[in-house]
């Protein structure tokens, strides 16, 4: 175990627990407004203060953690579920037209300014958490496709793969049974990094009103609401900002820590 991994996984675990706890209990009900009690600074009654509707900010952070984690996690899932098979396929048919097509397709997705496209998708199809997930997920596909191809190519040169081929296994079976298990570490580490980028992207999208819609709580929209209040009630902007910062920091540290712990040789790119 190393320091990065301990700090990172602790921070991540705190947010996961907050999100999980919100299914059963939050200090206050975030659906009920309490206008007379609005914009209170942090105190014994409301540990992190209240917002412009008098809602308890700690409760909003807990519910928002759920939204952020759900959106980012599914977006990573989409990226892995489509990207990894594409990368494996490209590696199995290395040098073929298919390989070339997959890799050029990847380059093309990278060429699109991701935020612009995410805004476009949510604008054409409507703003919702689901469309935010799709918009973020699409940009995870080439990341995993490229990484899994790069990881699979040297594996294909190894003797145990040759042995499997001599046994008559098809490239598909070899990819699933031998290549894939040998690159899970790498995928876990990159998955953590993409997870943290997903949290940031979700916050950005919901900040400009294109993510999860009210009454679903989200950190990005809490910041958008706080924008005009920042000079009278700074805690409304500071608390959600620190939540995003700490969650992303935790995931990044955990990713770095996992990388060193699982395999010191592997390198992960942070796009």
């Amino acid at each position, binding site marked *: 175990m190393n320091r990065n991994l301990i700090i990172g996984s602790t921070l991540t675990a705190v947010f996961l627990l907050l999100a999980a706890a919100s299914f059963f209990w939050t200090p206050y009900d975030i659906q009920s407004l309490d206008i007379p009690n609005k914009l209170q600074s942090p105190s014994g009654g409301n540990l992190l203060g209240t917002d412009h509707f008098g809602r308890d900010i700690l409760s909003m952070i807990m519910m928002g953690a759920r939204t952020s984690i759900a959106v980012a996690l599914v977006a990573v899932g989409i990226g892995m579920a489509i990207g990894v098979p594409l990368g494996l396929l490209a590696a199995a048919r290395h040098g073929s037209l298919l390989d070339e097509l997959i890799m*050029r397709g990847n*380059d*093309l997705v990278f*060429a*699109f*300014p991701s*935020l*612009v*496209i995410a*805004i*476009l*998708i949510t*604008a*054409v199809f409507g703003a919702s958490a689901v469309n935010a997930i799709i918009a973020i997920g699409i940009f995870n596909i080439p990341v995993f496709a490229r990484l899994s191809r790069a990881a699979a190519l040297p594996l294909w040169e190894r003797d145990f793969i040759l042995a499997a081929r001599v046994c008559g296994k098809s490239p598909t079976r070899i990819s699933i049974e031998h290549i894939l298990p040998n690159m899970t570490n790498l995928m876990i580490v990159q998955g953590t990094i993409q997870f*943290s980028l997903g949290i*940031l992207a979700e*916050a*950005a999208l919901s*900040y*400009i009103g294109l993510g999860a819609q009210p009454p679903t709580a989200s950190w990005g929209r809490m*910041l958008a609401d*706080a*924008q005009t209040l*920042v*000079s009278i009630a*700074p805690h409304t*902007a500071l608390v*959600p*900002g620190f939540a*995003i*910062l*700490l969650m*992303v*920091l935790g995931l*990044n*540290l955990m990713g770095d820590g996992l990388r060193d712990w699982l395999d010191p040789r592997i390198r992960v790119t*942070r796009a």
Partner: protein
Amino acid sequence: MIRYVLGRLISLVISLIVASIVIFAVIEVIPGDPAAFMLGVNARPDTIAALRAEMGLDQPVILRYFNWVTGMLQGDFGRSWTYKTPVADLISDRIWVSLPLAIYALFLSTIIAFPAGIYAASRRGGAGDITIMGATQLGVAIPNFWFAMILVLLFAINLRWFSAGGFPGWDNPLQAIKSLTLPAIALALPQAAILARVMRSSLLDMLGEDFIRTARAKGLSRRQALWRHAVRNALIPVLTIIGLQFSFLLAGGIIIEQIFFLPGLGRLIFQSISARDLIVVESVVMLLVFVVILVNFAVDIAYAAVDPRLRTKT
């Protein structure tokens, strides 16, 4: 080298064609009737018909696509439905905010990242390295729009050093630069953090190479070997990241321009999307993608010019 450039050029053209088809499809085909989409549910049928005629929607899709592409090649980006002016004019107005902002942010990010990365690499494992790496972890994790809010709170509202937003135009260059400073800092910080990390790891790779040991064996001090040999070679991966960051900064200013009320391309896209002015959205997105692809192409070529080994790699 010529073969390599030609190959890259062909792939550049193919990328542009595919990108234009994707953008056209997302904007003009998927919503069904773009005219009805732009005008919303309460539009009168004759307004929709007028817009359909203006956009040429009665023509077949293929023809519309070709008209759009050939128009752009001649500098005709269509007419904005909400602004009632040619999109090309809108773009040429806004580019003088977005482009200087991107360059300013890139400049800041580079002058922060280079010394930080080089210092961290030369003191590997020391207190300075650990502090800088810790700071970059924070820099990568901070959402830039939140950082922008904090900057406004500190420097515009509390200290009153800068205005909280707006852009006075280039008639007064000093004022213009001043009004771009907070946005540029907000944009630059996360990029500087990434760049410093790349600079550090690239430099550490170089310091482990044989030619550095040779240089040291020939009597160069650590510092001399670092500056004369390692830094120059370490710049190659750093340059790619700078290329990528430039296009990111140009397109990624949307939210920052929104926060600081800067009349740039990002704000134009955002307002056009809100106003459902698809003609503007389509052309500006295409322009941004074009710039990104072009910058990547330029980086590839610059790379191959610097390092002949890369010409054979695909």
